[in-house]
Protein backbone atom coordinates (compact mmCIF):
# COMPACT_ATOMS: atom_id res chain seq x y z
CA UNK A 1 0.00 0.00 0.00
CA UNK A 2 1.42 3.33 -1.01
CA UNK A 3 2.00 5.94 1.64
CA UNK A 4 1.09 9.47 0.77
CA UNK A 5 2.52 12.41 2.66
CA UNK A 6 -0.08 14.97 3.64
CA UNK A 7 0.26 18.47 4.97
CA UNK A 8 2.54 21.31 4.02
CA UNK A 9 5.59 19.97 2.14
CA UNK A 10 7.59 23.00 3.21
CA UNK A 11 7.12 22.05 6.84
CA UNK A 12 7.87 18.42 6.13
CA UNK A 13 11.20 19.39 4.58
CA UNK A 14 12.37 21.28 7.63
CA UNK A 15 15.19 19.27 9.12
CA UNK A 16 14.52 18.28 12.68
CA UNK A 17 16.87 16.99 15.30
CA UNK A 18 18.04 13.54 14.33
CA UNK A 19 21.53 13.57 15.77
CA UNK A 20 23.11 13.49 12.35
CA UNK A 21 26.02 15.54 13.67
CA UNK A 22 28.73 13.15 14.85
CA UNK A 23 30.50 16.04 16.58
CA UNK A 24 29.33 16.88 20.11
CA UNK A 25 29.14 20.52 21.22
CA UNK A 26 29.89 21.70 17.71
CA UNK A 27 28.47 25.13 18.52
CA UNK A 28 30.85 25.51 21.48
CA UNK A 29 28.00 26.34 23.83
CA UNK A 30 29.09 24.09 26.71
CA UNK A 31 32.20 24.88 28.75
CA UNK A 32 32.06 23.11 32.10
CA UNK A 33 35.79 23.28 32.88
CA UNK A 34 36.40 26.93 32.11
CA UNK A 35 35.19 29.64 29.78
CA UNK A 36 38.75 30.89 29.44
CA UNK A 37 42.16 29.41 30.18
CA UNK A 38 45.25 31.59 29.97
CA UNK A 39 48.90 30.56 29.66
CA UNK A 40 47.88 27.30 28.00
CA UNK A 41 50.94 25.50 26.66
CA UNK A 42 50.21 21.88 27.49
CA UNK A 43 47.62 19.67 25.86
CA UNK A 44 44.37 19.33 27.75
CA UNK A 45 40.66 19.93 27.58
CA UNK A 46 41.16 23.58 28.43
CA UNK A 47 37.82 25.17 27.60
CA UNK A 48 34.75 24.02 25.65
CA UNK A 49 33.55 20.48 26.38
CA UNK A 50 34.74 17.67 24.12
CA UNK A 51 37.28 19.87 22.36
CA UNK A 52 40.82 18.63 23.02
CA UNK A 53 43.55 21.24 22.71
CA UNK A 54 46.32 18.99 21.48
CA UNK A 55 50.03 19.46 21.10
CA UNK A 56 50.20 22.99 22.44
CA UNK A 57 53.96 22.90 22.06
CA UNK A 58 54.00 25.98 19.81
CA UNK A 59 53.60 29.26 21.67
CA UNK A 60 51.40 30.02 24.66
CA UNK A 61 47.68 30.64 24.36
CA UNK A 62 44.56 31.94 25.92
CA UNK A 63 41.82 29.55 24.87
CA UNK A 64 38.34 30.86 25.48
CA UNK A 65 34.68 30.55 24.73
CA UNK A 66 33.98 33.66 22.70
CA UNK A 67 30.81 35.51 21.75
CA UNK A 68 32.38 36.39 18.41
CA UNK A 69 30.23 34.46 15.92
CA UNK A 70 29.20 34.60 12.28
CA UNK A 71 26.27 36.97 11.85
CA UNK A 72 22.82 35.57 11.25
CA UNK A 73 23.70 31.90 11.57
CA UNK A 74 22.20 31.24 14.98
CA UNK A 75 25.42 30.65 16.87
CA UNK A 76 26.04 32.30 20.22
CA UNK A 77 29.53 31.03 21.02
CA UNK A 78 32.77 30.11 19.31
CA UNK A 79 36.10 28.72 20.47
CA UNK A 80 38.97 31.18 20.31
CA UNK A 81 42.74 30.64 20.22
CA UNK A 82 44.64 33.82 21.14
CA UNK A 83 48.43 33.66 20.94
CA UNK A 84 50.05 35.33 23.96
CA UNK A 85 53.63 34.14 23.52
CA UNK A 86 54.84 33.56 19.99
CA UNK A 87 57.12 30.86 18.66
CA UNK A 88 58.09 31.67 15.10
CA UNK A 89 60.28 28.64 14.48
CA UNK A 90 58.77 25.42 15.80
CA UNK A 91 61.06 22.50 16.51
CA UNK A 92 60.60 19.40 14.39
CA UNK A 93 58.28 17.64 16.82
CA UNK A 94 56.20 20.65 17.81
CA UNK A 95 52.51 20.67 17.05
CA UNK A 96 49.42 22.72 17.68
CA UNK A 97 46.00 21.44 16.83
CA UNK A 98 42.42 21.10 17.97
CA UNK A 99 40.61 17.82 17.87
CA UNK A 100 37.51 15.91 18.83
CA UNK A 101 37.64 12.18 19.56
CA UNK A 102 34.63 9.98 18.82
CA UNK A 103 33.56 6.64 20.25
CA UNK A 104 33.53 3.71 17.84
CA UNK A 105 30.07 2.59 18.91
CA UNK A 106 28.67 5.88 17.59
CA UNK A 107 30.16 5.25 14.16
CA UNK A 108 29.02 1.78 13.18
CA UNK A 109 26.41 3.09 10.73
CA UNK A 110 29.19 4.54 8.60
CA UNK A 111 30.01 0.97 7.49
CA UNK A 112 33.69 1.73 7.46
CA UNK A 113 35.81 -1.14 6.28
CA UNK A 114 33.11 -2.45 3.94
CA UNK A 115 32.32 -1.92 0.28
CA UNK A 116 29.39 0.24 1.39
CA UNK A 117 31.50 2.63 3.45
CA UNK A 118 29.87 6.06 3.63
CA UNK A 119 31.58 9.29 2.84
CA UNK A 120 31.70 12.01 5.50
CA UNK A 121 31.18 15.73 5.14
CA UNK A 122 32.67 18.19 7.57
CA UNK A 123 31.40 21.74 7.75
CA UNK A 124 32.50 24.53 10.07
CA UNK A 125 32.83 28.28 10.39
CA UNK A 126 36.30 29.74 10.86
CA UNK A 127 37.75 33.21 11.27
CA UNK A 128 41.35 34.31 11.70
CA UNK A 129 43.69 37.14 10.89
CA UNK A 130 46.19 34.54 9.65
CA UNK A 131 45.39 33.82 6.02
CA UNK A 132 46.80 30.77 4.27
CA UNK A 133 46.16 27.08 3.90
CA UNK A 134 45.21 24.86 6.84
CA UNK A 135 44.72 21.11 7.08
CA UNK A 136 42.00 18.98 8.65
CA UNK A 137 42.36 15.22 9.09
CA UNK A 138 40.16 12.30 10.00
CA UNK A 139 42.22 9.70 11.85
CA UNK A 140 41.07 6.12 12.23
CA UNK A 141 42.55 5.26 15.63
CA UNK A 142 41.57 1.60 15.43
CA UNK A 143 43.47 0.89 12.22
CA UNK A 144 46.01 3.77 12.20
CA UNK A 145 44.69 5.23 8.98
CA UNK A 146 44.17 8.81 7.88
CA UNK A 147 42.57 11.04 5.29
CA UNK A 148 43.07 14.79 5.07
CA UNK A 149 41.86 17.89 3.29
CA UNK A 150 43.11 21.43 3.16
CA UNK A 151 41.09 24.61 3.34
CA UNK A 152 42.13 28.14 2.54
CA UNK A 153 41.46 31.19 4.65
CA UNK A 154 41.63 33.90 2.06
CA UNK A 155 40.07 36.86 3.83
CA UNK A 156 41.54 38.02 7.10
CA UNK A 157 39.22 38.56 10.07
CA UNK A 158 36.19 37.32 8.16
CA UNK A 159 33.96 34.39 9.05
CA UNK A 160 34.07 31.77 6.31
CA UNK A 161 32.14 28.51 6.10
CA UNK A 162 34.23 25.57 5.00
CA UNK A 163 32.81 22.32 3.65
CA UNK A 164 35.05 19.32 3.15
CA UNK A 165 33.93 15.89 1.97
CA UNK A 166 35.96 12.79 2.74
CA UNK A 167 35.59 9.50 0.88
CA UNK A 168 34.37 6.44 2.71
CA UNK A 169 37.04 3.96 3.68
CA UNK A 170 36.60 0.37 2.55
CA UNK A 171 39.51 -0.78 4.70
CA UNK A 172 39.49 -1.17 8.48
CA UNK A 173 36.33 -1.33 10.56
CA UNK A 174 35.75 0.79 13.63
CA UNK A 175 35.68 -1.12 16.90
CA UNK A 176 32.20 -1.25 18.37
CA UNK A 177 33.13 0.06 21.80
CA UNK A 178 33.48 3.18 23.92
CA UNK A 179 37.08 3.89 22.96
CA UNK A 180 38.48 6.51 20.61
CA UNK A 181 37.93 5.30 17.04
CA UNK A 182 37.86 8.50 15.03
CA UNK A 183 39.68 11.73 15.67
CA UNK A 184 38.91 14.87 13.71
CA UNK A 185 41.81 17.31 13.93
CA UNK A 186 42.47 20.87 12.81
CA UNK A 187 46.20 21.62 12.51
CA UNK A 188 47.20 25.19 13.34
CA UNK A 189 50.95 24.83 13.53
CA UNK A 190 53.52 22.07 13.16
CA UNK A 191 57.20 21.24 12.94
CA UNK A 192 58.79 19.22 10.19
CA UNK A 193 57.84 15.91 11.77
CA UNK A 194 54.28 16.64 10.69
CA UNK A 195 54.88 18.62 7.50
CA UNK A 196 57.47 16.55 5.65
CA UNK A 197 55.05 14.28 3.75
CA UNK A 198 52.07 14.84 1.47
CA UNK A 199 48.43 15.58 2.22
CA UNK A 200 46.65 12.19 2.48
CA UNK A 201 43.82 12.97 0.08
CA UNK A 202 42.68 9.32 0.14
CA UNK A 203 42.51 6.97 3.10
CA UNK A 204 45.94 5.49 3.75
CA UNK A 205 48.13 4.12 6.49
CA UNK A 206 48.90 7.02 8.78
CA UNK A 207 52.28 8.70 8.48
CA UNK A 208 53.20 11.55 10.82
CA UNK A 209 54.70 13.59 8.01
CA UNK A 210 51.35 13.75 6.23
CA UNK A 211 49.28 15.15 9.06
CA UNK A 212 50.17 18.78 8.42
CA UNK A 213 51.81 18.55 5.01
CA UNK A 214 49.33 21.01 3.53
CA UNK A 215 49.69 23.56 6.31
CA UNK A 216 51.29 26.78 5.07
CA UNK A 217 50.88 28.84 8.22
CA UNK A 218 52.06 28.81 11.79
CA UNK A 219 49.36 30.35 13.93
CA UNK A 220 51.87 30.63 16.75
CA UNK A 221 54.27 32.95 14.97
CA UNK A 222 52.85 36.20 16.36
CA UNK A 223 50.99 37.41 19.41
CA UNK A 224 48.67 39.22 17.00
CA UNK A 225 47.24 35.91 15.86
CA UNK A 226 43.74 34.71 16.71
CA UNK A 227 41.69 31.80 15.40
CA UNK A 228 37.98 31.19 15.94
CA UNK A 229 35.86 28.18 15.10
CA UNK A 230 32.19 27.27 15.57
CA UNK A 231 29.34 25.42 13.90
CA UNK A 232 31.31 22.22 13.47
CA UNK A 233 29.32 19.40 11.94
CA UNK A 234 30.48 16.00 10.69
CA UNK A 235 27.83 13.94 8.99
CA UNK A 236 27.41 10.94 6.74
CA UNK A 237 27.09 11.64 3.04
CA UNK A 238 28.59 14.02 0.55
CA UNK A 239 26.41 17.03 1.28
CA UNK A 240 26.60 19.44 4.19
CA UNK A 241 23.25 20.10 5.80
CA UNK A 242 22.44 23.08 7.98
CA UNK A 243 23.97 22.93 11.44
CA UNK A 244 21.91 20.77 13.77
CA UNK A 245 21.10 22.94 16.77
CA UNK A 246 20.27 20.87 19.83
CA UNK A 247 18.40 22.21 22.85
CA UNK A 248 20.88 23.33 25.49
CA UNK A 249 19.90 20.60 27.92
CA UNK A 250 20.38 17.91 25.29
CA UNK A 251 23.77 19.29 24.36
CA UNK A 252 24.74 19.39 28.03
CA UNK A 253 23.59 15.82 28.61
CA UNK A 254 25.73 14.64 25.72
CA UNK A 255 28.74 16.38 27.27
CA UNK A 256 28.00 14.87 30.70
CA UNK A 257 28.92 11.45 29.35
CA UNK A 258 32.52 12.67 29.17
CA UNK A 259 32.78 15.21 31.97
CA UNK A 260 30.63 16.04 34.98
CA UNK A 261 31.66 18.99 37.09
CA UNK A 262 30.11 20.60 40.16
CA UNK A 263 31.29 24.15 40.68
CA UNK A 264 31.24 26.22 43.84
CA UNK A 265 30.35 29.86 44.02
CA UNK A 266 31.22 32.84 46.19
CA UNK A 267 27.91 33.10 48.00
CA UNK A 268 26.76 29.58 48.79
CA UNK A 269 28.70 28.02 51.67
CA UNK A 270 26.62 24.88 51.65
CA UNK A 271 27.12 23.82 48.06
CA UNK A 272 27.09 20.06 48.35
CA UNK A 273 29.38 17.98 46.17
CA UNK A 274 28.13 14.59 47.33
CA UNK A 275 26.72 12.57 50.23
CA UNK A 276 27.91 9.41 51.90
CA UNK A 277 28.55 7.81 55.25
CA UNK A 278 31.36 6.93 57.59
CA UNK A 279 32.32 3.28 57.19
CA UNK A 280 34.60 3.50 60.22
CA UNK A 281 36.23 6.06 62.45
CA UNK A 282 38.87 6.64 59.79
CA UNK A 283 37.00 6.36 56.50
CA UNK A 284 34.14 8.03 54.65
CA UNK A 285 32.61 6.67 51.46
CA UNK A 286 30.66 8.96 49.15
CA UNK A 287 28.83 7.58 46.14
CA UNK A 288 27.75 9.23 42.92
CA UNK A 289 25.20 8.14 40.36
CA UNK A 290 25.64 9.49 36.88
CA UNK A 291 22.93 10.13 34.32
CA UNK A 292 23.84 9.56 31.60
CA UNK A 293 26.38 6.89 32.47
CA UNK A 294 29.91 8.14 32.08
CA UNK A 295 31.86 6.73 29.17
CA UNK A 296 34.30 5.02 31.51
CA UNK A 297 35.32 5.05 35.13
CA UNK A 298 36.38 8.67 35.53
CA UNK A 299 39.37 10.44 36.92
CA UNK A 300 38.50 12.74 39.81
CA UNK A 301 39.97 16.11 40.62
CA UNK A 302 38.86 18.81 43.00
CA UNK A 303 39.72 22.12 44.56
CA UNK A 304 38.55 23.55 47.87
CA UNK A 305 36.04 20.86 48.63
CA UNK A 306 37.50 17.90 50.41
CA UNK A 307 38.42 19.10 53.90
CA UNK A 308 34.97 19.63 55.32
CA UNK A 309 34.02 16.36 56.94
CA UNK A 310 32.81 17.39 60.38
CA UNK A 311 35.57 19.97 60.43
CA UNK A 312 38.21 17.32 59.84
CA UNK A 313 41.08 17.96 57.48
CA UNK A 314 41.19 15.38 54.73
CA UNK A 315 43.95 15.11 52.18
CA UNK A 316 43.88 11.44 51.30
CA UNK A 317 41.11 10.34 49.05
CA UNK A 318 40.57 7.53 46.62
CA UNK A 319 38.17 6.18 44.06
CA UNK A 320 36.48 2.88 43.45
CA UNK A 321 34.11 1.69 40.79
CA UNK A 322 30.88 -0.11 41.56
CA UNK A 323 29.98 -1.10 38.06
CA UNK A 324 30.82 -3.28 35.15
CA UNK A 325 33.03 -1.90 32.38
CA UNK A 326 31.25 0.52 30.04
CA UNK A 327 28.39 1.00 32.48
CA UNK A 328 29.71 3.61 34.81
CA UNK A 329 26.55 4.66 36.54
CA UNK A 330 27.93 4.83 40.01
CA UNK A 331 31.23 5.64 41.56
CA UNK A 332 32.53 5.70 45.08
CA UNK A 333 34.98 8.09 46.64
CA UNK A 334 36.74 7.16 49.84
CA UNK A 335 38.17 9.77 52.18
CA UNK A 336 40.53 9.41 55.11
CA UNK A 337 41.42 12.04 57.75
CA UNK A 338 44.86 13.56 57.96
CA UNK A 339 45.23 12.19 61.48
CA UNK A 340 43.36 10.42 64.27
CA UNK A 341 40.05 8.57 64.18
CA UNK A 342 37.55 11.44 64.11
CA UNK A 343 34.56 9.79 62.46
CA UNK A 344 31.67 7.86 63.95
CA UNK A 345 30.81 4.76 62.02
CA UNK A 346 27.50 4.98 60.12
CA UNK A 347 27.24 8.76 60.49
CA UNK A 348 26.12 10.66 57.42
CA UNK A 349 28.85 12.72 55.73
CA UNK A 350 28.91 15.21 52.89
CA UNK A 351 31.43 16.80 50.61
CA UNK A 352 30.94 20.53 50.83
CA UNK A 353 32.37 22.98 48.34
CA UNK A 354 33.84 26.08 49.90
CA UNK A 355 32.24 29.40 49.11
CA UNK A 356 34.73 30.05 46.35
CA UNK A 357 34.29 30.37 42.63
CA UNK A 358 37.37 28.19 42.23
CA UNK A 359 35.93 25.30 44.24
CA UNK A 360 34.93 22.29 42.21
CA UNK A 361 34.80 18.54 42.01
CA UNK A 362 35.11 17.05 38.54
CA UNK A 363 34.65 13.58 37.07
CA UNK A 364 36.48 13.22 33.79
CA UNK A 365 35.82 10.32 31.42
CA UNK A 366 37.02 11.99 28.25
CA UNK A 367 38.57 10.17 25.35
Amino acid at each position, binding site marked *: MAITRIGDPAIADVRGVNFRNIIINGNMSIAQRATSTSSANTQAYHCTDRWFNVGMSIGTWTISQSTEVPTGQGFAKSLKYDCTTAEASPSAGDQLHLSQRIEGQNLQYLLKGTSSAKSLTLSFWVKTNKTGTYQVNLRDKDNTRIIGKTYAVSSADTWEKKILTFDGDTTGTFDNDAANSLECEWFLGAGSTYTSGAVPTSWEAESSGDRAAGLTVNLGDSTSNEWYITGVQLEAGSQASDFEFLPHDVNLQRCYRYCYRINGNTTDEQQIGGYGFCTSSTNVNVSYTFHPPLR*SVPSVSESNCKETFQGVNVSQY*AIFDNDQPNLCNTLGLSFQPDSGSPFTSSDIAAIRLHNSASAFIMFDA*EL
Partner: protein
Amino acid sequence: MIDRVEKIYVTIGKNSTPKFTCFKVNYENGLIKIVPNNIENTDYQAIQEWAKIEGNNIIDPGA
Protein backbone atom coordinates in the same frame (compact mmCIF):
# COMPACT_ATOMS: atom_id res chain seq x y z
CA MET B 1 52.92 16.61 32.43
CA ILE B 2 52.85 13.88 35.05
CA ASP B 3 55.26 14.42 37.92
CA ARG B 4 54.46 11.61 40.38
CA VAL B 5 52.20 8.56 40.50
CA GLU B 6 51.29 6.57 43.60
CA LYS B 7 49.04 3.54 44.00
CA ILE B 8 46.16 4.02 46.43
CA TYR B 9 44.59 1.22 48.44
CA VAL B 10 41.01 1.48 49.66
CA THR B 11 39.00 -0.38 52.26
CA ILE B 12 35.58 -0.40 50.67
CA GLY B 13 33.45 -2.33 53.17
CA LYS B 14 33.65 -2.96 56.87
CA ASN B 15 36.39 -5.38 57.85
CA SER B 16 37.48 -5.86 54.25
CA THR B 17 41.07 -5.99 53.09
CA PRO B 18 42.45 -2.81 51.52
CA LYS B 19 42.35 -3.15 47.76
CA PHE B 20 44.34 -1.36 45.08
CA THR B 21 41.75 0.69 43.20
CA CYS B 22 43.35 3.83 41.86
CA PHE B 23 46.36 6.06 41.37
CA LYS B 24 47.06 9.46 42.86
CA VAL B 25 48.70 11.52 40.12
CA ASN B 26 50.55 14.78 40.70
CA TYR B 27 51.03 16.94 37.64
CA GLU B 28 53.79 19.50 37.15
CA ASN B 29 51.26 22.34 37.14
CA GLY B 30 50.11 21.40 40.66
CA LEU B 31 46.95 19.55 39.64
CA ILE B 32 46.19 16.33 41.49
CA LYS B 33 43.97 13.68 39.94
CA ILE B 34 42.67 10.42 41.30
CA VAL B 35 42.77 8.02 38.39
CA PRO B 36 40.98 4.65 38.38
CA ASN B 37 42.75 1.38 37.74
CA ASN B 38 40.78 1.04 34.53
CA ILE B 39 42.24 0.61 31.06
CA GLU B 40 39.45 2.61 29.41
CA ASN B 41 40.31 5.75 31.33
CA THR B 42 42.45 8.13 29.26
CA ASP B 43 44.50 9.24 32.29
CA TYR B 44 45.19 5.59 33.12
CA GLN B 45 46.53 5.13 29.59
CA ALA B 46 48.73 8.21 30.03
CA ILE B 47 50.13 6.76 33.27
CA GLN B 48 51.11 3.57 31.47
CA GLU B 49 52.92 5.58 28.79
CA TRP B 50 54.62 7.70 31.45
CA ALA B 51 55.78 4.57 33.32
CA LYS B 52 57.47 3.23 30.19
CA ILE B 53 59.96 6.10 30.26
CA GLU B 54 63.18 5.20 32.01
CA GLY B 55 63.38 6.79 35.44
CA ASN B 56 59.61 7.02 35.93
CA ASN B 57 58.32 4.69 38.63
CA ILE B 58 54.88 4.19 40.11
CA ILE B 59 55.15 4.33 43.88
CA ASP B 60 53.52 1.37 45.60
CA PRO B 61 53.14 1.82 49.38
CA GLY B 62 51.35 -1.53 49.69
CA ALA B 63 48.03 -2.34 51.27
